């Protein structure tokens, strides 16, 4: 079998794969978007009258009609077809069931309460169609003490151990922007579906895949839990610096003001420390007994911040970024805001942005995907208007 060629030797790896998305919001839809970009036909079921709840939530794009103006919906549903169906009624559910049999993948977000209410045991679809891959994407999975809990991005970040680590020591812990737990889970779900398709190709078997957002977050910590299990230390939030109470302590993970904003330093190794000293003209610190261990430097980080700030204060972020990277080999980066991100030379060079005409002469810029590959190029389609493809899939008799 040959893959679908797009020209330039590019292939859409999921060409011929049909995905039925009965999932609202961000986690499931972000996964569906990824699959669509790889050539899968993704059909999204939306319930009347308003469809996916993310159609009605901000941030909004100015100049577009209500229902089509959510940047959140538009981004996460690029390249899909929208079918309007009240699938929670018994008649609607029958229609949904007959649709599922035409698809390779069922992507749904039915939590325990909804499954009980409508009567969907986890084997409902997979038992009659053993080649089906059904993935259930919910905040906590379908078992366990939290299975019936209600969630939100900040609640996920709290329980997943991310919130505790971000913000100033002693102050309110801070959330990551937007809907990061959903995005991470969407990526995880995409990986799960790809692996399940591989399994089906070799064994012929589909699977029921039960994915939990909380577990997704819990597998994405670097050494948070190891600080406890190996060193007996609690990893804590500490503003823009790493904490002093662990073997990871050192000077150089820090964010400092310069002439036109803030610059982030990511210095963590001994040779980077020595180059930093050379850069600011203080090689005397390298052999200074007050700074000759990581922990001593961490203890003196306030003073070291003032030394580095003196060196950077009159320079711009870009000047510092280029000089520290090119001459001194130090990992640094300007902290960019949204207006600057979309103008960034590197992102522009790699053509990560895509201008999409959403109608009413509104051209909107979205990021595409974080990769460039020699034989895969994401296929970016438009987000559907509500029920745009209903007639293609549901006979009106």
């Amino acid at each position, binding site marked *: 079998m040959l893959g679908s060629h797009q020209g330039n030797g590019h292939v859409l790896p999921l060409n011929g794969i049909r995905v039925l998305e009965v999932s609202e919001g961000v986690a499931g839809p972000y996964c569906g978007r990824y699959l669509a970009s790889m050539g899968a036909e993704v059909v999204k079921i939306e319930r009347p009258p308003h469809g996916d709840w993310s159609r009605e939530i901000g941030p909004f794009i100015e100049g577009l009609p209500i229902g089509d103006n959510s940047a959140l919906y538009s981004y996460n549903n690029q390249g899909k077809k929208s079918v309007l169906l009240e699938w929670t009624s018994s008649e609607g559910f029958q229609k949904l069931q007959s649709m599922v049999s035409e698809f390779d993948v069922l992507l749904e977000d039915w939590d325990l309460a909804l499954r009980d209410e409508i009567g969907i045991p986890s084997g409902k679809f997979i038992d009659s169609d053993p080649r089906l891959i059904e993935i259930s994407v919910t905040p906590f999975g379908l078992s366990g003490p939290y299975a019936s809990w209600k969630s939100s991005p900040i609640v996920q970040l709290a329980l997943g151990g991310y919130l505790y680590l971000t913000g100033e020591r002693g102050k309110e812990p801070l959330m990551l922007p937007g809907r990061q737990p959903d995005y991470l889970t969407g990526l995880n779900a995409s990986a799960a579906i790809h692996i399940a398709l591989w399994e089906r190709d070799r064994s012929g078997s589909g699977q029921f895949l039960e994915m939990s957002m909380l577990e997704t977050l819990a597998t994405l910590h*670097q050494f948070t839990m190891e600080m406890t299990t190996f060193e007996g230390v609690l990893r804590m939030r500490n503003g823009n610096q790493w904490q002093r109470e662990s073997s990871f302590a050192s000077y150089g993970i820090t964010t400092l003001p310069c002439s036109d904003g803030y610059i982030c330093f990511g210095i963590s190794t001994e040779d980077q420390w020595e180059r930093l000293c050379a850069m600011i003209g203080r090689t005397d610190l390298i052999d200074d007994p007050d700074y000759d261990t990581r922990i001593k430097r961490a203890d003196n980080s306030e003073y070291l911040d003032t030394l580095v700030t003196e060196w950077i204060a009159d320079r711009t972020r870009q000047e510092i970024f280029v000089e520290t990277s090119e001459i001194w080999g130090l990992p640094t980066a300007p902290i960019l805001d949204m207006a600057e991100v979309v103008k960034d030379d590197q992102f522009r060079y790699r053509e990560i942005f895509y201008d999409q005409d959403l109608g009413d002469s509104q051209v909107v810029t979205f990021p595409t995907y974080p990769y460039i590959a020699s034989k895969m190029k994401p296929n970016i389609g438009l987000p559907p208007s509500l029920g745009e493809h209903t007639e293609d899939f549901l006979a009106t008799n």
Partner: protein
Amino acid sequence: MAKDLISSGSLSDIRVLDLTRVWAGPLATRVMGDFGADIIKISDPRVQLLSSNGLNHKLNRNKRNIGVRLDIEEGRDVLLGLVKKSDVIIENFRPRVMRNLNIGYDVLKTVKPDIIFVSMPGFGVDGPYSEYPAFGTTAEAVAGIPSLIGYGDGVPISTGIAYGDPISGLNAITLIMAALRIKNQTGHGQFIDIALSASPLCNLGEYVGAYSGSKKVPNPSGNRSKEYSPQGAFRCRGRDQWIAISVFNNREWMNLKNLLNDSDVNDIQTDTLEHRKNHEEIIEGALAKWTSRLDAFEAVSLLQENGIRSGNVSSGAQLLEDAHLNDRDFFFDFEEEEYGWKRYDGNSIPGNKIPKSKWSGTNDVGVNSKEILTDLLGYTESLCKELASKEAVYFGD
């Protein structure tokens, strides 16, 4: 499903050469190893892998380890031999490193034309910043993440979790599986370049889209949200104990208001989102007063019983003891000779993995060098000795 397939895992027919270090890359290959892929981790014998702070333990389970010096000709020959026997090679050096070792994609594809070569550099393999060093924390900075975190005083705050890494790791799994699918369909390998800095940007799609329409730069204001109010983290009884609360709609708010029964709140108009946004400080003050008297876990139970989205702000230590994660048998306990029993996170991707009872902990540098060279490459005993004496391959202690 055939029994032998069940026990071996979905990816047991795939071999990956893993040159990645630290986090993003090892996370991707860990997932594949849990699913039965033969992950051969190629370690520099001069760099410690296992250590008393556990940094590399959890991400390198279920991998075989060979210690190879790629800067020694015989070591490089070993790599080329392994490439011939592998489907995927993955690395996260700065672009010039693989080039300078003369093992870039252009070289490896002459050895193995259908090899899938995955690079995970900070900014991508080309473009103005391509050779700049990076770190998860600096990668998230250029993507705009810290500009969206803060207390409203204009000072940006980094995530505290080096966010560029985990997202790139998740992206890598999907992309490797897609490339393997293409290879199965067309016989072609390819080169994939995943930029650490681009992954967080793609998790901010709604911000980019909304900005391009309005040209308004979003600024953070603690945990407050335009859509949900009240929302935040609130301090409970005990040391640095907090819970997160997020109210999505008027019904949830009425439940919370009844629980609070606070005279200041009862005196004001709070029925709609707009009203609550107008009185956010009063509401947050009342909430903080209420939670400060309560135990965090009791408060969350009470709130969830009343249908209010909330969760404990868990530290790493609390995460390890989380009732829900433990009930679902999420964690993986493993004993290592030198370090004893430790608890690690499991795998959040559902599917046909190797049974946890058969998982192996992290193999130290060179532990599997001999079996890999003899079984896979057919090296003789005397050749292995020669490689050892030239220090091209390290065979463990």
